[in-house]
């Protein structure tokens, strides 16, 4: 992959219809996977996929944000934008993972939590807040992989982990570049410019210590070779897991706290 891609180029790459989605990777990475549904409170959010998986003799709980691979799927998946019940569903599975002492893997790929009437009525803000609140103290290892778009609190809601991995062309930001330009400059047409100043690329985020590792993509991007991309992700998941699995609970939770505790760019006057 040439290094001279701009942030905006990468925005286009991760939004392209042929960009592999979470389920494409899940199918390739795990030896077994079974999807399980519903938040047991309201409904089953289709933009959030949860299930149990096996990888090299270890069982994992998998939480993924799922975009559609075509228009029909996208409508079904709400374009990968979770509603509150998506976060409540993933929380249910994370709690279960803790109960059975299973490590958790989350895949982030969303342009944000869904801004809708029902979503607000059902507490989108509370759902996101509670998800981060609970993840911060879960007693099992959490590995986060940003595979495509990671925009706003809707992405971070499942991003409070011990190891944060990110695909080379993926983006992770406070908001979409369009939303950013619209708020800061009152002109969503300046999205391209916004993308360049927002520090949303994997390299920027590694420099800012928001992520721990960049996973290289095949030449031309992940869509060129989904199998190879999956292999790379698998390798990094395994190595992250191995580095976490023997850490005792208290140390694990304390280190996760410190990791996020230390995020902030300020100086003492």
């Amino acid at each position, binding site marked *: 992959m040439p290094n001279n891609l701009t942030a905006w180029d990468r925005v286009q790459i991760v939004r392209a219809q042929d960009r592999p989605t979470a389920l494409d990777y899940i199918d390739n990475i795990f030896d077994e996977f079974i999807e399980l549904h519903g938040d047991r409170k309201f409904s089953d959010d289709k933009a959030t996929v949860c299930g149990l998986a096996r990888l090299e003799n270890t069982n994992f709980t998998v939480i993924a944000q799922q975009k559609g691979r075509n228009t029909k799927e996208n409508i079904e998946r709400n374009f990968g934008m979770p509603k509150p019940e998506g976060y409540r569903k993933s929380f249910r599975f994370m709690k279960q993972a803790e109960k059975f002492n299973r490590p958790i893997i989350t895949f982030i790929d969303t342009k944000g939590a869904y801004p809708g009437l029902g979503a607000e009525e059902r507490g989108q803000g*509370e759902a996101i807040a509670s998800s981060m609140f609970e993840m911060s103290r879960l007693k099992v290892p959490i590995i986060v992989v940003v595979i495509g778009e990671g925009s706003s609190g809707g992405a971070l809601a499942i991003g*409070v982990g011990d190891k944060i991995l990110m695909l080379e062309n993926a983006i992770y*930001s406070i908001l979409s570049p369009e939303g950013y330009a619209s708020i800061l400059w009152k002109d969503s047409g300046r999205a391209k410019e916004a993308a360049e100043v927002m520090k949303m690329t994997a390299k920027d985020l590694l420099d800012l210590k928001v992520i721990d590792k960049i996973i290289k993509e095949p030449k031309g991007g992940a869509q060129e070779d989904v199998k190879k991309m999956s292999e790379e992700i698998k390798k990094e998941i395994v190595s992250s897991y191995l580095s976490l699995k023997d850490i005792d609970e208290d140390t694990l939770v304390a280190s996760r706290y410190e990791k996020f505790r230390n995020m902030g760019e300020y100086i003492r*006057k």
Partner: protein
Amino acid sequence: MVIDKIKKREEPEEDKKYSKPDIPVGKWIKCEKCKEILYKEIVRENYSVCPNCGNHFRLSSRRRIAQIIDEGTFEEFKLNIETVNPLGMDSYIKKMETIREKTGIDEAVKCGTGNINGEKVVICVMDGNFLMGSMGSVVGEKITYSIEKAIELKLPLIIFSVSGGARMQEGIISLMQMAKTSAAIAKLDEAGLLYISVLTDPTYGGVTASFASLGDIILAEPHAMIGFAGRRVIEQTIKQELPEEFQTSEFLLEHGFIDKVVERKDMKDTIHKLLLLNK
């Protein structure tokens, strides 16, 4: 950050520069809501609430603290920290300088300890006059520090929120403050300490989606606008008009997301009562 209404319903023009004596610029103010022309002094004596229609004007952090904390007991945490401007935006630093000059406050939240009718608490009060009360590195750090201080001192925590959300000018670092503050609240929770979150007009975005929604008890002022996504964004997304009461405190109460709507004049005594009942 999702607010386009924050400029409305400003509190009555007052001594914005706190170091200066309390001399009002003009004597009259118009209530945005009922359009009544009001004598400022009357409004101020009435907790900055319109005596005609009950509209709650916006409060600066300084005046909020004066209304909630016993006189002479507030001790501010002196962190003396400043953002390093992680996205390197010149306009951001300039903007902050202008706001500091205008308002006399250095950031969008004031934190410290103080007494509420004799009960000692850690209190954080956000200020909508400073970049819409948005949360960047400094706000996130001050809130987190205060939460940790509450744990250390074994004190209840009170946070008054008013915010447009995460601060755009600090990009992803602002976003991460949501995780940072939420994790700190989880720690407070583990320590078995009480957290009362008070939502005031407006509370949106990354603040709604983090510490503001995590109170053991969540109170709100009447008719405050509270939500995750802004009204305009939602209308554009769903292409339909939203009900009038959408995202008001009363709407949230109806949907089960806050414990109680409390008028400003009753806020201090209500918090005091809750502190005693949680002892």
